[in-house]
């Protein structure tokens, strides 16, 4: 029991420290480091489990960072899942909330608007980069890229609910077409 507790504590501490470095929405970006810690160094879960956690969180509804919950669960059961999720979310989100509270007193002004307005095009580029990396990371080659491009066209030209597109993607995939 004792050693289980220690694994939970160690995992939570490691993730909490990492969480503050997840700049750029990068809990996905943290994956290499989390992999190193739970698979390569400590052998708490296997490589296949880690990859599966990542893919499941990617495909499942909700924030993609929830692969961390699955990793925690496979490392140390329910306690591990809860500890990992809280460790990766609470520190940075507390910071955001404190920042919002502080900004109420000295709200924006011209510089505040300029910072928000100036960062907007940069974030559009970063978002596109995230999509691009996802296209490249898929092991489906040009057919995956074609499916992604087709999705862009449909999403730009219609107001079809994206759920149907995702379902279509799953269907096409299950038919071994991708």
């Amino acid at each position, binding site marked *: 029991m004792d050693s289980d507790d220690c694994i939970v504590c160690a995992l939570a501490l490691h993730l909490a420290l990492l969480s503050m470095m997840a700049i750029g929405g990068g809990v996905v970006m943290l994956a290499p480091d989390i992999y190193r810690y739970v698979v390569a160094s400590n052998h708490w879960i296997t490589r296949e489990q880690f990859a599966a956690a990542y893919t499941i969180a990617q495909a499942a509804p909700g924030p993609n960072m*929830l692969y961390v919950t699955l990793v925690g669960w496979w490392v140390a059961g329910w306690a591990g899942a809860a500890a990992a999720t809280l460790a990766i979310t609470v520190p940075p989100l507390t910071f*955001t909330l404190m920042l919002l509270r502080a900004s109420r007193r000295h709200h924006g002004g011209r510089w505040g608007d300029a910072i928000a307005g100036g960062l907007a095009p940069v974030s559009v580029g970063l978002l596109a*980069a995230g999509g691009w990396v996802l296209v490249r990371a898929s092991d489906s080659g040009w057919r995956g890229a074609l499916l992604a491009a087709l999705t862009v066209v449909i999403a730009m030209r219609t107001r079809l609910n994206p759920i149907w597109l995702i379902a279509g993607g799953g269907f096409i995939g299950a038919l071994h077409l991708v």
Partner: protein
Amino acid sequence: MSTLPAPPEPDHTVAPPPALRPLALFLAFSQMALSGFGGVMPFAYRFLVEKRQWLRPEQFAEMVALGQVLPGPTICNVSIMVGWRFAGVRGALASLSGMLTGPIMVVLLLGVGYQKFGASPHVHDALTGMSAVAAGLILSTALKMAVRLWRVAPVRWVKGSLCGFALLSFAGVGLMHWPLIEVVALLAPFAVGVAFFKPK
């Protein structure tokens, strides 16, 4: 391109945000999160900007920008900012809980399912197809935001530099694989400078 959704609001001045109860925010964010296959951002854009019109596209882009620069998952930061804007701290916590509660349960259920059926090649191939579509959805959200930023930019040199900054950050992170922090640190001073000096 002609069938792009028209901008919904012609003369949206700085109207006060509608008051929303924390419960409404919790339900709204649960809905977005649970529809958000492959990533919530495209669904959040569709729900907050296109359907409910709680936010204008450029407000959404600004929140995403801030959410990316702050530590933590971008969509969670956006949830907190939206909740905060409409109902203060309680709204922020309600939105965040909505964003996380349902998806955590789904992910754990799928984890159980994976342990039983994960070996099936059908499951693997379906996941591959879904992630390709998810990538396309993220790209289309970025394109929609870019189109909107282009439209609201007042003059040509501002339009040009907006495109420049978007392309440079895309190329730096997506093509060159440079560290995101460094790319943002390099571009931000110039981008903020343009936003500061642009004509109204």
